[in-house]
Protein backbone atom coordinates (compact mmCIF):
# COMPACT_ATOMS: atom_id res chain seq x y z
CA UNK A 1 0.00 0.00 0.00
CA UNK A 2 2.18 2.86 -1.27
CA UNK A 3 1.61 6.26 0.22
CA UNK A 4 2.70 9.68 -0.84
CA UNK A 5 5.26 9.56 1.97
CA UNK A 6 6.95 6.53 0.50
CA UNK A 7 7.05 8.10 -2.93
CA UNK A 8 8.93 11.02 -1.47
CA UNK A 9 12.36 9.85 -0.30
CA UNK A 10 12.90 12.79 2.06
CA UNK A 11 10.13 11.83 4.51
CA UNK A 12 9.99 8.28 5.82
CA UNK A 13 6.61 6.85 6.88
CA UNK A 14 5.11 7.47 10.33
CA UNK A 15 5.70 4.48 12.62
CA UNK A 16 4.55 5.89 15.93
CA UNK A 17 1.04 7.28 15.68
CA UNK A 18 0.25 10.64 17.24
CA UNK A 19 -1.84 9.18 20.13
CA UNK A 20 1.11 6.97 21.09
CA UNK A 21 3.56 9.86 21.01
CA UNK A 22 1.21 12.09 23.04
CA UNK A 23 0.79 9.21 25.48
CA UNK A 24 4.55 8.86 25.83
CA UNK A 25 5.25 12.51 26.58
CA UNK A 26 2.26 13.12 28.88
CA UNK A 27 3.34 10.02 30.76
CA UNK A 28 6.86 11.46 31.05
CA UNK A 29 5.37 14.67 32.44
CA UNK A 30 3.09 12.98 34.95
CA UNK A 31 5.81 10.58 36.15
CA UNK A 32 8.13 13.56 36.54
CA UNK A 33 5.53 15.45 38.62
CA UNK A 34 4.81 12.36 40.71
CA UNK A 35 8.52 11.68 41.28
CA UNK A 36 9.37 15.25 42.26
CA UNK A 37 6.37 15.61 44.59
CA UNK A 38 6.88 12.14 46.03
CA UNK A 39 10.63 12.26 46.60
CA UNK A 40 11.53 15.89 47.16
CA UNK A 41 8.60 18.09 48.16
CA UNK A 42 6.97 18.48 51.60
CA UNK A 43 3.85 16.55 52.59
CA UNK A 44 1.37 19.19 51.51
CA UNK A 45 2.18 18.46 47.85
CA UNK A 46 0.58 15.06 48.26
CA UNK A 47 -2.59 16.08 46.43
CA UNK A 48 -0.55 17.13 43.38
CA UNK A 49 1.21 13.76 43.60
CA UNK A 50 -2.20 12.06 43.65
CA UNK A 51 -3.47 14.06 40.66
CA UNK A 52 -0.38 13.02 38.72
CA UNK A 53 -1.28 9.45 39.69
CA UNK A 54 -4.83 9.82 38.39
CA UNK A 55 -3.52 11.18 35.07
CA UNK A 56 -1.04 8.31 34.88
CA UNK A 57 -3.81 5.81 35.59
CA UNK A 58 -5.95 7.19 32.75
CA UNK A 59 -2.95 7.13 30.40
CA UNK A 60 -2.16 3.50 31.26
CA UNK A 61 -5.74 2.40 30.64
CA UNK A 62 -5.58 4.16 27.29
CA UNK A 63 -2.24 2.50 26.47
CA UNK A 64 -3.57 -0.98 27.18
CA UNK A 65 -6.59 -0.40 24.92
CA UNK A 66 -4.36 1.19 22.29
CA UNK A 67 -2.07 -1.83 22.46
CA UNK A 68 -4.98 -3.86 21.08
CA UNK A 69 -6.76 -1.47 18.72
CA UNK A 70 -4.03 1.06 17.82
CA UNK A 71 -1.98 1.35 14.67
CA UNK A 72 0.31 -1.55 13.76
CA UNK A 73 3.44 -0.66 15.74
CA UNK A 74 1.50 0.37 18.83
CA UNK A 75 -0.04 -3.09 19.19
CA UNK A 76 1.34 -5.47 21.78
CA UNK A 77 1.08 -8.48 19.51
CA UNK A 78 3.78 -7.09 17.24
CA UNK A 79 6.20 -6.65 20.15
CA UNK A 80 9.21 -8.99 19.66
CA UNK A 81 8.94 -10.56 23.09
CA UNK A 82 10.21 -14.10 22.44
CA UNK A 83 13.10 -15.16 24.64
CA UNK A 84 15.29 -16.08 21.67
CA UNK A 85 14.76 -12.66 20.14
CA UNK A 86 15.79 -10.91 23.34
CA UNK A 87 18.77 -13.24 23.79
CA UNK A 88 20.11 -12.72 20.27
CA UNK A 89 19.54 -8.96 20.50
CA UNK A 90 21.45 -8.81 23.78
CA UNK A 91 24.23 -10.96 22.30
CA UNK A 92 24.40 -8.61 19.32
CA UNK A 93 24.55 -5.60 21.61
CA UNK A 94 27.55 -7.10 23.41
CA UNK A 95 29.24 -7.59 20.05
CA UNK A 96 28.59 -3.95 19.22
CA UNK A 97 25.68 -4.47 16.87
CA UNK A 98 22.05 -3.34 17.10
CA UNK A 99 19.82 -4.26 14.18
CA UNK A 100 17.29 -1.61 13.27
CA UNK A 101 13.65 -2.58 13.90
CA UNK A 102 10.69 -0.88 12.33
CA UNK A 103 8.91 -0.88 15.70
CA UNK A 104 10.54 -1.72 19.05
CA UNK A 105 13.63 -3.87 19.30
CA UNK A 106 13.25 -6.92 21.62
CA UNK A 107 15.02 -5.34 24.60
CA UNK A 108 13.04 -2.12 24.16
CA UNK A 109 9.79 -4.07 23.94
CA UNK A 110 10.54 -5.85 27.21
CA UNK A 111 11.39 -2.54 28.80
CA UNK A 112 8.00 -1.16 27.77
CA UNK A 113 6.14 -4.16 29.17
CA UNK A 114 8.02 -3.90 32.47
CA UNK A 115 7.53 -0.14 32.67
CA UNK A 116 3.79 -0.32 31.95
CA UNK A 117 3.30 -3.14 34.46
CA UNK A 118 5.23 -1.48 37.26
CA UNK A 119 3.64 1.92 36.59
CA UNK A 120 0.25 0.21 36.84
CA UNK A 121 1.37 -1.32 40.15
CA UNK A 122 2.42 2.16 41.30
CA UNK A 123 -0.99 3.61 40.46
CA UNK A 124 -2.88 0.79 42.16
CA UNK A 125 -0.76 0.79 45.33
CA UNK A 126 -0.92 4.59 45.33
CA UNK A 127 -4.72 4.46 45.31
CA UNK A 128 -4.64 2.03 48.25
CA UNK A 129 -2.35 4.33 50.27
CA UNK A 130 -4.36 7.41 49.27
CA UNK A 131 -7.54 5.72 50.43
CA UNK A 132 -6.30 3.91 53.53
CA UNK A 133 -3.77 6.26 55.01
CA UNK A 134 -5.12 9.59 53.82
CA UNK A 135 -8.85 8.80 53.59
CA UNK A 136 -8.99 10.21 50.10
CA UNK A 137 -9.96 8.97 46.67
CA UNK A 138 -12.20 6.13 45.46
CA UNK A 139 -10.85 3.56 47.93
CA UNK A 140 -11.19 5.64 51.10
CA UNK A 141 -14.36 3.83 52.13
CA UNK A 142 -13.06 0.31 51.59
CA UNK A 143 -9.40 0.42 52.63
CA UNK A 144 -8.50 0.76 56.31
CA UNK A 145 -5.57 2.62 57.77
CA UNK A 146 -3.40 -0.42 58.41
CA UNK A 147 -3.64 -1.76 54.85
CA UNK A 148 -2.96 1.72 53.51
CA UNK A 149 0.04 2.17 55.73
CA UNK A 150 1.45 -1.26 54.85
CA UNK A 151 0.89 -0.65 51.13
CA UNK A 152 2.97 2.51 51.32
CA UNK A 153 6.05 0.27 51.64
CA UNK A 154 5.09 -1.60 48.45
CA UNK A 155 4.38 1.70 46.69
CA UNK A 156 7.83 2.95 47.63
CA UNK A 157 9.42 -0.28 46.41
CA UNK A 158 7.74 0.06 43.00
CA UNK A 159 8.70 3.72 42.85
CA UNK A 160 12.35 2.74 43.25
CA UNK A 161 11.91 -0.03 40.70
CA UNK A 162 10.35 2.34 38.15
CA UNK A 163 13.16 4.86 38.70
CA UNK A 164 15.67 2.10 37.98
CA UNK A 165 13.80 1.05 34.82
CA UNK A 166 13.66 4.67 33.64
CA UNK A 167 17.41 4.92 34.21
CA UNK A 168 18.03 1.81 32.10
CA UNK A 169 15.57 3.06 29.47
CA UNK A 170 17.48 6.35 29.20
CA UNK A 171 20.82 4.52 28.96
CA UNK A 172 19.29 2.41 26.17
CA UNK A 173 18.14 5.52 24.31
CA UNK A 174 21.59 7.05 24.75
CA UNK A 175 23.36 3.91 23.45
CA UNK A 176 21.00 3.64 20.46
CA UNK A 177 21.51 7.30 19.63
CA UNK A 178 25.19 7.77 20.28
CA UNK A 179 26.65 4.37 19.34
CA UNK A 180 24.26 2.88 16.81
CA UNK A 181 23.05 6.18 15.31
CA UNK A 182 19.40 5.16 15.50
CA UNK A 183 17.41 8.36 15.71
CA UNK A 184 15.00 7.06 18.37
CA UNK A 185 14.30 10.38 20.12
CA UNK A 186 13.18 12.26 16.98
CA UNK A 187 11.11 9.18 16.12
CA UNK A 188 9.16 9.58 19.35
CA UNK A 189 8.59 13.25 18.45
CA UNK A 190 7.66 13.17 14.75
CA UNK A 191 6.82 9.47 14.57
CA UNK A 192 9.27 8.75 11.74
CA UNK A 193 12.37 6.56 11.62
CA UNK A 194 14.69 7.30 8.67
CA UNK A 195 15.43 4.56 6.17
CA UNK A 196 12.71 2.30 7.49
CA UNK A 197 10.11 0.50 5.42
CA UNK A 198 6.72 0.35 7.11
CA UNK A 199 4.12 -2.19 6.10
CA UNK A 200 1.11 -0.22 7.18
CA UNK A 201 1.99 3.31 8.12
CA UNK A 202 -0.14 5.50 10.30
CA UNK A 203 -2.97 7.48 8.77
CA UNK A 204 -4.91 10.44 10.07
CA UNK A 205 -7.73 8.04 10.97
CA UNK A 206 -5.53 6.42 13.59
CA UNK A 207 -5.04 9.80 15.18
CA UNK A 208 -8.75 10.58 15.23
CA UNK A 209 -9.60 7.12 16.53
CA UNK A 210 -6.92 7.44 19.24
CA UNK A 211 -8.39 10.76 20.33
CA UNK A 212 -11.80 9.12 20.52
CA UNK A 213 -10.45 6.20 22.61
CA UNK A 214 -8.68 8.55 25.00
CA UNK A 215 -11.77 10.75 25.34
CA UNK A 216 -13.81 7.62 26.12
CA UNK A 217 -11.35 6.58 28.84
CA UNK A 218 -11.60 10.02 30.45
CA UNK A 219 -15.40 10.05 30.14
CA UNK A 220 -15.58 6.57 31.67
CA UNK A 221 -13.41 7.56 34.62
CA UNK A 222 -15.32 10.78 35.21
CA UNK A 223 -18.59 8.86 35.08
CA UNK A 224 -17.23 6.32 37.59
CA UNK A 225 -16.01 9.05 39.90
CA UNK A 226 -19.41 10.73 39.75
CA UNK A 227 -21.50 7.61 40.33
CA UNK A 228 -19.37 5.66 42.80
CA UNK A 229 -19.09 8.74 45.00
CA UNK A 230 -16.21 9.38 47.31
CA UNK A 231 -17.11 8.60 50.86
CA UNK A 232 -14.98 10.51 53.30
CA UNK A 233 -13.73 9.31 56.64
CA UNK A 234 -16.27 9.35 59.42
CA UNK A 235 -16.44 12.80 60.97
CA UNK A 236 -18.12 13.94 64.11
CA UNK A 237 -20.08 17.04 64.85
CA UNK A 238 -18.36 18.76 67.75
CA UNK A 239 -21.02 19.70 70.33
CA UNK A 240 -21.44 23.37 71.14
CA UNK A 241 -20.59 22.93 74.83
CA UNK A 242 -17.26 21.33 73.91
CA UNK A 243 -16.53 23.86 71.20
CA UNK A 244 -17.21 26.72 73.60
CA UNK A 245 -15.76 25.57 76.89
CA UNK A 246 -12.56 24.11 75.47
CA UNK A 247 -12.30 26.26 72.37
CA UNK A 248 -12.18 29.51 74.30
CA UNK A 249 -8.55 28.89 75.23
CA UNK A 250 -7.15 26.57 72.59
CA UNK A 251 -8.06 25.18 69.18
CA UNK A 252 -10.85 22.63 69.45
CA UNK A 253 -9.12 19.26 69.36
CA UNK A 254 -10.86 16.46 67.57
CA UNK A 255 -11.72 13.70 70.09
CA UNK A 256 -9.84 11.16 67.94
CA UNK A 257 -6.57 12.77 69.01
CA UNK A 258 -6.51 11.00 72.43
CA UNK A 259 -7.68 7.73 73.98
CA UNK A 260 -10.62 7.52 76.39
CA UNK A 261 -8.16 7.02 79.28
CA UNK A 262 -6.22 10.12 78.32
CA UNK A 263 -9.37 12.22 78.01
CA UNK A 264 -10.52 10.94 81.39
CA UNK A 265 -7.19 11.96 82.93
CA UNK A 266 -7.37 15.43 81.39
CA UNK A 267 -10.99 16.01 82.39
CA UNK A 268 -10.46 14.86 85.95
CA UNK A 269 -7.92 17.56 86.78
CA UNK A 270 -9.07 20.65 84.92
CA UNK A 271 -8.22 22.93 87.84
CA UNK A 272 -4.56 22.39 86.95
CA UNK A 273 -4.73 22.19 83.18
CA UNK A 274 -1.14 22.54 81.93
CA UNK A 275 -0.48 25.37 84.36
CA UNK A 276 -3.89 26.98 84.25
CA UNK A 277 -7.17 26.75 86.06
CA UNK A 278 -9.64 25.46 83.49
CA UNK A 279 -12.22 24.24 86.00
CA UNK A 280 -15.78 23.84 84.81
CA UNK A 281 -19.21 23.19 86.28
CA UNK A 282 -19.53 19.50 87.17
CA UNK A 283 -22.40 18.95 84.79
CA UNK A 284 -20.41 20.34 81.85
CA UNK A 285 -17.37 18.25 82.76
CA UNK A 286 -19.56 15.13 82.69
CA UNK A 287 -21.19 16.11 79.39
CA UNK A 288 -17.87 16.79 77.67
CA UNK A 289 -16.18 13.69 79.10
CA UNK A 290 -18.92 11.46 77.70
CA UNK A 291 -18.56 13.03 74.26
CA UNK A 292 -14.77 12.65 74.27
CA UNK A 293 -14.84 9.03 75.40
CA UNK A 294 -17.52 8.08 72.88
CA UNK A 295 -15.47 9.53 70.03
CA UNK A 296 -11.93 8.76 71.12
CA UNK A 297 -9.04 7.55 68.95
CA UNK A 298 -10.28 3.96 68.94
CA UNK A 299 -13.40 5.11 67.08
CA UNK A 300 -11.50 6.51 64.11
CA UNK A 301 -9.38 4.93 61.38
CA UNK A 302 -7.38 7.99 60.36
CA UNK A 303 -3.62 8.39 60.32
CA UNK A 304 -3.62 10.84 63.26
CA UNK A 305 -5.95 8.62 65.29
CA UNK A 306 -3.47 5.77 64.86
CA UNK A 307 -0.18 7.60 65.13
CA UNK A 308 -1.05 10.27 67.72
CA UNK A 309 -4.50 9.58 69.14
CA UNK A 310 -3.86 6.00 70.24
CA UNK A 311 -0.43 6.78 71.70
CA UNK A 312 -0.69 7.72 75.37
CA UNK A 313 1.89 10.06 76.86
CA UNK A 314 2.66 10.62 80.57
CA UNK A 315 1.05 14.09 80.63
CA UNK A 316 -1.44 13.35 77.85
CA UNK A 317 0.28 15.85 75.56
CA UNK A 318 -0.14 15.10 71.83
CA UNK A 319 3.13 16.90 71.24
CA UNK A 320 4.88 14.22 73.26
CA UNK A 321 4.18 11.47 70.73
CA UNK A 322 7.00 10.31 68.48
CA UNK A 323 4.91 10.87 65.36
CA UNK A 324 4.13 14.48 66.30
CA UNK A 325 7.79 15.22 66.97
CA UNK A 326 8.97 13.52 63.79
CA UNK A 327 6.44 15.39 61.66
CA UNK A 328 7.40 18.77 63.15
CA UNK A 329 11.15 18.30 63.55
CA UNK A 330 12.06 20.73 60.79
CA UNK A 331 10.46 23.62 62.67
CA UNK A 332 12.63 25.64 65.02
CA UNK A 333 11.14 26.45 68.46
CA UNK A 334 10.70 30.08 67.34
CA UNK A 335 8.37 28.94 64.58
CA UNK A 336 5.77 27.99 67.18
CA UNK A 337 6.18 31.35 68.90
CA UNK A 338 5.39 33.20 65.66
CA UNK A 339 2.30 35.35 66.14
CA UNK A 340 0.40 33.50 63.42
CA UNK A 341 0.94 30.24 65.31
CA UNK A 342 1.19 31.10 69.01
CA UNK A 343 1.97 27.65 70.35
CA UNK A 344 2.67 24.03 69.49
CA UNK A 345 -0.89 23.06 70.32
CA UNK A 346 -2.54 25.54 67.97
CA UNK A 347 -3.02 22.84 65.33
CA UNK A 348 -5.26 24.82 63.02
CA UNK A 349 -2.70 27.56 62.57
CA UNK A 350 -1.40 25.31 59.79
CA UNK A 351 -3.77 22.31 59.59
CA UNK A 352 -6.84 23.97 58.13
CA UNK A 353 -8.96 20.85 58.64
CA UNK A 354 -7.77 20.07 62.19
CA UNK A 355 -11.29 20.33 63.64
CA UNK A 356 -12.48 17.50 61.40
CA UNK A 357 -9.72 15.20 62.68
CA UNK A 358 -8.64 14.44 59.11
CA UNK A 359 -5.36 16.35 58.98
CA UNK A 360 -5.10 16.00 55.20
CA UNK A 361 -1.61 16.71 53.95
CA UNK A 362 -3.13 18.87 51.28
CA UNK A 363 -4.81 21.09 53.87
CA UNK A 364 -1.53 22.16 55.46
CA UNK A 365 -0.85 25.86 54.93
CA UNK A 366 2.16 27.23 56.76
CA UNK A 367 1.56 30.94 57.45
CA UNK A 368 4.05 33.27 55.77
CA UNK A 369 7.21 33.90 57.74
CA UNK A 370 6.87 30.87 60.01
CA UNK A 371 9.36 28.73 58.15
CA UNK A 372 12.49 30.65 57.32
Amino acid at each position, binding site marked *: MPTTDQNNNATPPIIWDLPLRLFHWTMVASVLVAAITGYFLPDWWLNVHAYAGYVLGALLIFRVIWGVVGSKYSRFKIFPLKTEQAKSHLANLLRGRSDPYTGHNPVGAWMIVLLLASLAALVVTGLVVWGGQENNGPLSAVVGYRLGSFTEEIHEFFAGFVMTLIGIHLVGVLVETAIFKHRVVPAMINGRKPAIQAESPVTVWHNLFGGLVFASVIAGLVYLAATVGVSQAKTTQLPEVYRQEC*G*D*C*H*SVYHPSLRTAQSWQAVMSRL*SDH*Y*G*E*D*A*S*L*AEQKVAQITVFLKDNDADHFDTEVAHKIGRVDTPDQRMTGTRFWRKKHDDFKPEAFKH*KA*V*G*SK*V*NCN*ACHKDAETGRFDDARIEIPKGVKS
Partner: protein
Amino acid sequence: MKPVLLTGTLALALAFAAPASASPLLDQYAQEAKSASPEFKGFAADRGQALFSSRHTTGKPETPSCTSCHSDSPSKAGLTRAGKVIEPMAASASPQRYTDPSKVEKWFRRNCNSVLGRDCTAREKGDFITFMLTQ
Protein backbone atom coordinates in the same frame (compact mmCIF):
# COMPACT_ATOMS: atom_id res chain seq x y z
CA MET B 1 -40.19 70.91 102.72
CA LYS B 2 -41.87 67.77 101.61
CA PRO B 3 -41.44 68.31 97.83
CA VAL B 4 -37.79 69.21 98.38
CA LEU B 5 -37.22 65.96 100.22
CA LEU B 6 -38.96 64.06 97.47
CA THR B 7 -36.91 65.71 94.72
CA GLY B 8 -33.77 65.08 96.70
CA THR B 9 -34.53 61.40 97.13
CA LEU B 10 -35.38 61.11 93.46
CA ALA B 11 -32.15 62.81 92.43
CA LEU B 12 -30.18 60.56 94.73
CA ALA B 13 -31.89 57.48 93.39
CA LEU B 14 -31.19 58.56 89.80
CA ALA B 15 -27.57 59.30 90.57
CA PHE B 16 -27.22 55.86 92.09
CA ALA B 17 -29.12 54.09 89.31
CA ALA B 18 -27.27 55.68 86.41
CA PRO B 19 -23.88 53.90 86.66
CA ALA B 20 -25.47 50.67 87.82
CA SER B 21 -27.52 50.40 84.63
CA ALA B 22 -24.27 50.16 82.65
CA SER B 23 -23.96 46.53 83.75
CA PRO B 24 -26.46 44.64 85.87
CA LEU B 25 -23.53 42.64 87.20
CA LEU B 26 -22.19 45.67 89.02
CA ASP B 27 -25.35 45.90 91.15
CA GLN B 28 -24.80 42.44 92.44
CA TYR B 29 -21.10 42.94 93.09
CA ALA B 30 -21.90 46.24 94.88
CA GLN B 31 -24.33 44.46 97.18
CA GLU B 32 -21.84 41.72 97.92
CA ALA B 33 -19.08 44.25 98.54
CA LYS B 34 -21.26 46.22 100.89
CA SER B 35 -22.19 43.19 102.94
CA ALA B 36 -18.53 42.19 103.11
CA SER B 37 -17.40 45.61 104.29
CA PRO B 38 -19.68 48.41 105.57
CA GLU B 39 -17.09 51.04 104.51
CA PHE B 40 -17.63 50.18 100.81
CA LYS B 41 -18.28 53.43 98.93
CA GLY B 42 -18.49 52.28 95.30
CA PHE B 43 -16.15 50.92 92.65
CA ALA B 44 -13.13 52.74 91.29
CA ALA B 45 -11.73 52.41 87.76
CA ASP B 46 -8.17 53.21 88.87
CA ARG B 47 -8.17 50.31 91.34
CA GLY B 48 -9.44 48.09 88.51
CA GLN B 49 -6.64 49.29 86.27
CA ALA B 50 -4.05 48.53 88.97
CA LEU B 51 -5.45 45.03 89.38
CA PHE B 52 -5.32 44.49 85.62
CA SER B 53 -1.78 45.66 85.01
CA SER B 54 0.21 44.77 88.12
CA ARG B 55 2.31 41.65 88.46
CA HIS B 56 1.32 39.23 91.19
CA THR B 57 3.38 36.53 92.84
CA THR B 58 0.72 34.42 94.48
CA GLY B 59 -0.70 32.66 91.41
CA LYS B 60 0.62 30.16 88.91
CA PRO B 61 4.10 31.05 87.63
CA GLU B 62 2.95 30.84 84.00
CA THR B 63 0.46 33.69 84.49
CA PRO B 64 1.80 36.41 86.83
CA SER B 65 -0.58 39.09 85.48
CA CYS B 66 -3.82 39.57 83.59
CA THR B 67 -1.65 41.13 80.90
CA SER B 68 0.22 37.82 80.44
CA CYS B 69 -2.60 36.77 78.15
CA HIS B 70 -4.79 39.84 77.62
CA SER B 71 -2.00 42.08 76.24
CA ASP B 72 -0.94 45.34 77.86
CA SER B 73 -3.89 47.30 76.59
CA PRO B 74 -7.58 46.56 77.19
CA SER B 75 -8.36 47.76 73.69
CA LYS B 76 -5.98 45.24 72.07
CA ALA B 77 -6.60 41.55 71.47
CA GLY B 78 -4.70 39.05 73.61
CA LEU B 79 -3.38 35.55 73.06
CA THR B 80 -3.86 32.46 75.24
CA ARG B 81 -0.81 30.38 76.07
CA ALA B 82 -2.17 27.83 73.61
CA GLY B 83 -2.18 30.39 70.84
CA LYS B 84 -5.84 31.33 70.60
CA VAL B 85 -6.75 34.98 70.08
CA ILE B 86 -8.68 36.64 72.97
CA GLU B 87 -11.03 39.48 72.10
CA PRO B 88 -10.07 42.82 73.71
CA MET B 89 -11.21 43.32 77.31
CA ALA B 90 -12.50 46.89 76.86
CA ALA B 91 -16.29 47.01 76.69
CA SER B 92 -16.10 49.49 73.81
CA ALA B 93 -14.06 47.00 71.74
CA SER B 94 -16.03 43.88 72.76
CA PRO B 95 -19.60 45.02 73.54
CA GLN B 96 -20.80 41.51 74.38
CA ARG B 97 -18.47 41.35 77.39
CA TYR B 98 -19.77 41.74 80.98
CA THR B 99 -23.34 40.88 79.98
CA ASP B 100 -23.54 37.15 80.77
CA PRO B 101 -23.19 36.70 84.57
CA SER B 102 -22.31 33.00 84.44
CA LYS B 103 -19.58 33.60 81.88
CA VAL B 104 -18.15 36.51 83.85
CA GLU B 105 -18.17 34.44 87.03
CA LYS B 106 -16.53 31.48 85.30
CA TRP B 107 -13.62 33.54 84.06
CA PHE B 108 -13.14 35.42 87.34
CA ARG B 109 -13.10 32.08 89.14
CA ARG B 110 -10.53 30.55 86.81
CA ASN B 111 -8.32 33.53 86.09
CA CYS B 112 -8.19 34.97 89.62
CA ASN B 113 -7.07 31.55 90.72
CA SER B 114 -4.44 31.35 87.96
CA VAL B 115 -3.10 34.90 88.45
CA LEU B 116 -3.69 35.59 92.18
CA GLY B 117 -3.90 32.08 93.56
CA ARG B 118 -7.23 32.90 95.23
CA ASP B 119 -10.76 34.02 94.45
CA CYS B 120 -11.26 37.70 93.70
CA THR B 121 -13.40 39.72 96.11
CA ALA B 122 -16.64 41.31 94.95
CA ARG B 123 -14.97 44.70 95.18
CA GLU B 124 -12.07 43.62 92.96
CA LYS B 125 -14.48 42.21 90.37
CA GLY B 126 -16.53 45.43 90.42
CA ASP B 127 -13.41 47.60 90.15
CA PHE B 128 -12.19 45.52 87.22
CA ILE B 129 -15.46 45.75 85.29
CA THR B 130 -15.81 49.45 86.10
CA PHE B 131 -12.35 50.05 84.63
CA MET B 132 -13.14 48.01 81.52
CA LEU B 133 -16.43 49.87 81.00
CA THR B 134 -14.50 53.14 80.81
CA GLN B 135 -12.09 51.77 78.21
